[in-house]
């Protein structure tokens, strides 16, 4: 058994030995005529209590579902900014705060910057080992919901979504925009802009301050090798790349795509949240609902 497999088997073993013990509370403020909103509390490894926002369409399910894994921001969206709220009339949506993010920041309140490099030179203490477990726990919770059609569920997010899809075989669709673990050490050297690639900018600072840690950091990051994880993914996958020439553009992601076991494509950003967003909404609707169904889009995109 290879060392990367052993690393993640230990994570899943820890998770299997840690009951989720979910609590689900109605959120009247976010409940509409077409969807009911809930706050969800579940336990991940540690043990650590997490929080997520769950929305279920009114009517008879099961429904297609969208799972938004933890983002690299301090804030947890109820629904990603700019997504039409009417999306909730068609899909179950679930957004999870990984440990350190708002609503899951006790006892650990992550700093941004600071979260990505927290214990990065200690592979088994690295915070993203636990954050990945958090995201996997969220997937397990959602896929166990009776209102969810597992055959029509997509996991959406950054690199963590991809790793979750490699660890949870029930996932049939994946939409991933890697920005954390793609050739991180090499690409971090190109990044000073905290606005565009905050995690890589943070890593760049860390390696400049602690150059002697570079081998240890490399070892830790090797467990997050996306090309390795891609070999375990049979889900139909859309990879969202940065625009041509950007730090994580399509050329940086070809090795990941070529390793995927299932059908896949790369969409290169058009540097337009409208064009990129519209493509994503169409992909989700085409695959989770039907090719003949119009996507639900914001007013200004119609």
């Amino acid at each position, binding site marked *: 058994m290879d060392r990367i497999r052993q690393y993640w088997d230990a994570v899943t073993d820890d998770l299997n030995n840690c009951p989720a013990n979910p609590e689900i509370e109605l959120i009247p403020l976010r409940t509409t005529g077409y969807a009911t909103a809930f706050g969800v509390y579940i336990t991940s490894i540690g043990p650590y209590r997490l929080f997520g926002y769950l929305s279920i369409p009114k009517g008879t399910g099961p429904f297609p579902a969208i799972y938004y894994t933890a983002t690299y*921001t301090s804030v947890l969206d109820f629904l990603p900014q700019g997504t039409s709220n009417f999306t909730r009339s068609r899909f179950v949506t679930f957004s999870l705060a990984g440990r350190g993010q708002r609503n899951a920041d006790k006892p650990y309140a992550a700093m941004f910057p600071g979260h990505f490099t927290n214990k990065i030179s200690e592979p088994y203490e690295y915070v993203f080992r636990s954050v990945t477990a958090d995201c996997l726990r969220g997937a397990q919770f959602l896929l166990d919901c009776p209102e969810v059609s597992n055959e029509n569920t997509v996991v959406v997010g950054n690199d963590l979504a991809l790793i979750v899809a490699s660890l949870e075989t029930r996932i049939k669709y994946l939409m991933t925009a890697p920005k954390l673990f793609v050739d991180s050490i090499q690409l971090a050297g190109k990044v000073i802009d905290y606005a565009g690639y905050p995690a890589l900018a943070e890593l760049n600072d860390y390696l400049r301050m602690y150059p002697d840690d570079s081998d240890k950091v490399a070892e830790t990051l090797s467990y997050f090798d996306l090309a390795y994880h891609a070999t375990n993914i049979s889900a139909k996958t859309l990879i969202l790349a940065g625009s041509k020439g950007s730090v994580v553009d399509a050329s940086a992601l070809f090795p990941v795509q070529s390793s995927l076991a299932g059908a896949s494509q790369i969409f290169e950003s058009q540097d337009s949240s409208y064009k990129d967003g519209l493509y994503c909404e169409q992909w989700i609707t085409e695959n989770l609902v039907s090719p003949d169904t119009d996507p639900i889009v914001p007013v200004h995109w119609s």
Partner: protein
Amino acid sequence: MSYTVDPQYKCQIQKPKDFDAFWKGVTDQLTDIPLDPEIYADPLRSSPTVEVFRVFYNSLDSVKISGWYAIPRTRSSAMPGVLLFPGYLSDPPIPKTWAEKGYACLSVAPRGKIGSKQQFDPGYPGLLTHNIVDPNTYTYRGFYVDAWRAVDFLMSRSEIDDNRIGVTGISQGGGLSITTAAMRPEVSVASVGAPYLVGFMDSLLLTDTYPYEEINDYLRLYPERKEQVESTLAYFDGINFADKITCPIMVHLGLQDNVCPPETGFHLFRELKSQQKELFAYDGHGHDANRKEHQKKIEAFFEKYIGSEI
């Protein structure tokens, strides 16, 4: 038939008669609150070309505000300063790229943001509707002042030329740039992208997305409070600050903006009193407002009006 934006759209906003008195009352409270700026070098975040500092200062209600301050290592004693304001969800970035271009830049974390939430933390989502029926305690009363007081922080620094201060931001950062340019005459130039906090009540009808959807959620649950909400928001609407802005200002919008409707940006632009004002409305762009390409125009605009040292 696809959606089309009416550039002549007029928001239904009314300016309260006591608008100026309201804000004078707020800013008068600052006279008894010393700025007490604190600045700490952060070697981890600094680079061979840029020095980074963690900074703090006191604002309304004596809330301590934090920020990231970045300055070029090669500098003189009279540098231009830039205030960079954050979006609603985003964490204030370390503004190294501005410093690389020769500006001293403060990236502000107003109350409730990470780094400034020990004394005030209404949460996200939730910040937009916190105490929304009461202008005297509404979130953005203090939040706006936190941004305005950042000007005082820059002016407390000996390396800053007080006559060369600019403000910039996108989305909420754009909204804060508007109110800061309006309320602080020391601001010499402003750049505003896809502005948020502009035409609130119209935005509720023009969008179906968060964060404005927070207010729709609130009014769905408490429909009887609509008049109070509308009354409060009139004190905080960027359009009602626009006639106070006289510095050169550039506004950029995305015609497919699904977060901050471009209609509200058009109305805002018409109300700006500045003689030197430029509008860029980008077709094919959403809330990004063509940020990547437009950034070059912002830099040229700032260079023209406040210049850089390097």
